[in-house]
């Protein structure tokens, strides 16, 4: 047999061939390109079209961006430097970027808003990065609003301290009263105690306190707020204040009490049904008419109130989504433990529902933060409003793109990083639940 075999077959391999490289067209850059860019005529066309589009954009934009006008002091100077060529006039950014960031905030006090922003990150860290940050910091989170208000607006330290003490008083009254009478009555007692503290005791003793212990920093008028600082202040205030209101509204919307539910649904649908700009018109033209005659608080405060109302309607929907996502067993489990409504909300439902809602809350915040640009329409100096004011300066009359690009880029950086965070969180939550 072997002979026949040897006769019929001329050559038999008795060793393995060394492993060969895969064909050059399927590995490396080339293979990757073939698989991802040029698989089939359709994809190839798409790739070529996109590449041409990108090239076209770059060829137009790069020379415009690379323009040696950083030190120009006016648009005319820019035009002289460029001598007829197309190019950006970056001098306006160099001269005004601080204004675009802080508005008219006194420049020697810039550290205060910066510190407030840094502390904001510290304050939200235990909420946003609960795995890495000790939860003891939550105490600081609760203190943060008072610190921030004091840092931004300045003035005597006693105003925020007294405001904070009001909450403390309310808490202790509630604690004490809830042992004597029913929790609901105790809650009412707590609220009344806090109101008494704020309306009667605070005005009576704050002036004396500030005279005795004059601890304070230079006060800044809210009219001096502007630029991105204004946007962030409005956005953060609106989100922080809208969270409790939103929780109440969401609970009200889920409630069995027909009247309460009707009021909550009516409020939420009304706010969500009208554009923010009309609410801002209300803030700028009507809110003073709705308030008791003689009350007069400044436009920034009015805008904050309206934006807070706006945000709380959206927040209520986000939290309602979180409540709906909780398995029914959680509610039943809480009931079977004999917890009453508020106890089960506080101990079982809300901690979980809020955790699920964080991505939604972050995207609500992004939306509100972007929407703060609308205040430029009612004559406030947010970045867009400031860009108009800058163009009214004879030195910069006629500058458009540079300001738009700068403002757009800053917004992009803020919003993009927040949306990335929210995505990360969503992924984390997803694995946690499956």
């Amino acid at each position, binding site marked *: 047999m072997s002979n026949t075999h040897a006769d019929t077959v001329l050559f038999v391999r008795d060793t393995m061939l060394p492993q060969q490289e895969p064909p050059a067209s399927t590995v490396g850059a080339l293979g990757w390109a073939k698989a991802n860019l040029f698989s089939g005529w359709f994809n190839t066309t798409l790739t070529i079209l996109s590449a041409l589009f990108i090239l076209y954009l770059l060829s137009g934009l790069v020379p415009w961006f690379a323009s040696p006008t950083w030190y120009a002091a006016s648009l005319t100077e820019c035009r002289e430097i460029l001598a007829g060529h197309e190019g950006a006039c970056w001098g306006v950014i160099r001269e005004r970027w601080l204004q675009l960031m802080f508005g008219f905030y006194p420049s020697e006090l810039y550290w205060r808003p910066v510190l407030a922003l840094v502390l904001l990150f510290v304050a939200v860290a235990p909420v946003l990065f609960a795995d890495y940050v000790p939860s003891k910091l939550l105490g600081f989170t609760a203190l943060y609003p008072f610190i921030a208000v004091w840092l931004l607006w300045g003035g005597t330290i006693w105003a925020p301290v007294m405001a904070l003490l009001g909450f403390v008083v309310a808490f202790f009254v509630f604690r004490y009263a809830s042992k004597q009478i029913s929790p609901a009555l105790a809650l009412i007692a707590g609220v009344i105690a806090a109101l008494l503290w704020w309306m009667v005791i605070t005005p009576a003793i704050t002036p004396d306190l500030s005279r005795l212990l004059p601890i304070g920093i230079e006060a800044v008028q809210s009219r001096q707020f502007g630029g991105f600082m204004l946007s962030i202040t409005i956005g953060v205030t609106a989100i922080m204040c809208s969270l409790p209101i939103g929780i109440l509204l969401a609970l009200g919307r889920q409630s069995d009490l027909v009247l309460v539910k009707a*009021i909550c649904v009516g409020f939420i649908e009304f706010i*969500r049904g009208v554009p923010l700009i009309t609410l801002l018109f209300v803030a700028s033209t009507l809110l003073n*008419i709705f308030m008791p005659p003689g009350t007069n608080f400044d436009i920034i405060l009015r805008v904050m109130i309206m934006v807070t109302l706006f945000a709380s309607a959206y927040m209520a929907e986000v939290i309602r989504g979180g409540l709906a996502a909780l398995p029914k067993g959680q509610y039943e489990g809480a009931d079977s433990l004999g917890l009453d409504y508020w106890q089960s909300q506080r101990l079982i439902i809300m901690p979980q529902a809020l955790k699920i809602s964080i991505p939604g809350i972050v995207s609500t915040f992004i939306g509100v933060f972007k929407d703060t640009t609308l205040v430029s329409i009612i004559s406030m100096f947010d970045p867009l409003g400031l860009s108009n004011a800058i163009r009214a300066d004879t030195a910069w009359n006629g500058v458009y793109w540079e300001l*738009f690009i700068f403002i757009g880029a800053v917004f992009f950086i803020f919003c993009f990083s927040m949306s990335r965070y929210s995505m990360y969180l969503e992924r984390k939550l997803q694995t946690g639940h499956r």
Partner: protein
Amino acid sequence: MTTLTDPPAESFKLSMLIYDTRYRSITFQTIALIAFLLLIGWLINNTAQNLVDLGKEPSFGFMNEPAGYDINQRLIEYNSQSSHLRAAFVGLLNTLLVAVLGCITATVVGVIVGVLRLSGNWLVARLMTVYVEMFRNVPVLMWIVLAMAILIEGLPSPRDFRGEDAVASMSVFDSVAVTNRGVYVPEPLFARGLGDVSVGGLFEISLDLIAILVVLGGGLFVSNLIKKRADVTQNATGVRPRTWHLRTGVIVVPLLILLVILGFHLGYPELSGFNFSGGIHLRNSLIALWLALSLYTAAFIAEIVRAGIMAISKGQTEAAAALGIRPRRIMSLVILPQALRVIIPPLISQYLNLTKNSSLAIAVGYMDITGTLMGITLNQTGRELETVLLGMLIYLSISLIISSAMNWYNSRVKLVER
């Protein structure tokens, strides 16, 4: 209140109002109602007091006075002598126009981008990601202003079309003029038109349009009948008769005949005086707002579409492939119809957002309801309370109508769970 004073049991104690679950809800609701009414009463009282102080009486009488200003884009007859009410109505129609155009475009762009983001083509997928992130993370007001600036700076002005050595020329066989004042496209004209009919004295509708719509509707109806008969035949015999030529015929032929009877021809825009005249003038403000709103909203819709597609389990794709369906048809026949059910609820809120964002029209001078009623009318009459409240009411009604219509549609396509 009657329930409170009318206790069912003899052993009613006041504390039962709080502790007894039978009464507790009534107690709380009464408290809530009282608080709510107090709040409303307080607000109304303040308002009344303030208005007296300012010497103003709330009344809508000013709405019937002549507006005194002109509006460039008017879908119905309007001039500066028309009333403020009519100006508001012109604005409302402009709002609705840009909202409808925007929603359609945003949906088309959003679906395409959402599908392309999942494309195997690396470059295209990245490009779409960049588009989505750029538009989602920059305020819509900036995009509107930017779109307007690009249109104004990037396109030729009508002056450039003039003279022997004109810099710019008209496109599409000399029928469309793209200028930085807007786009002029040919308009349909009827040599033997039927005239207009007035609707309740408010506005006029062209009878030609009605005639065309009637004929078109009739054609579609007949075409549907043919299809149904073909279905019956197919069910009975197993062979589907060829009907496409009949079906297009019953739609197209009567329409063509009607157009010939009406003397249909196109009116081309041409340069005369300062501007182009003739044709339909799509103003820059409309185009900028339309583009910016639809591209901005499309970025959100793309994400919704992508999430919807990814929510469909991979088994569906594999099963469809196993049946021998081609990839593109898998997308359109298997994946998208299922994804639609996930997509529609968030899509509704995007439509609402787009409609509400159209109120930013004043940034580019598009005269929508915010620009007319809550803009110039407010300025000229000084009636803040009436105009702003009326404007909010109008927006609220639009939102409620859109959301109820879309919810009705949603409930129709929703999977019936058993």
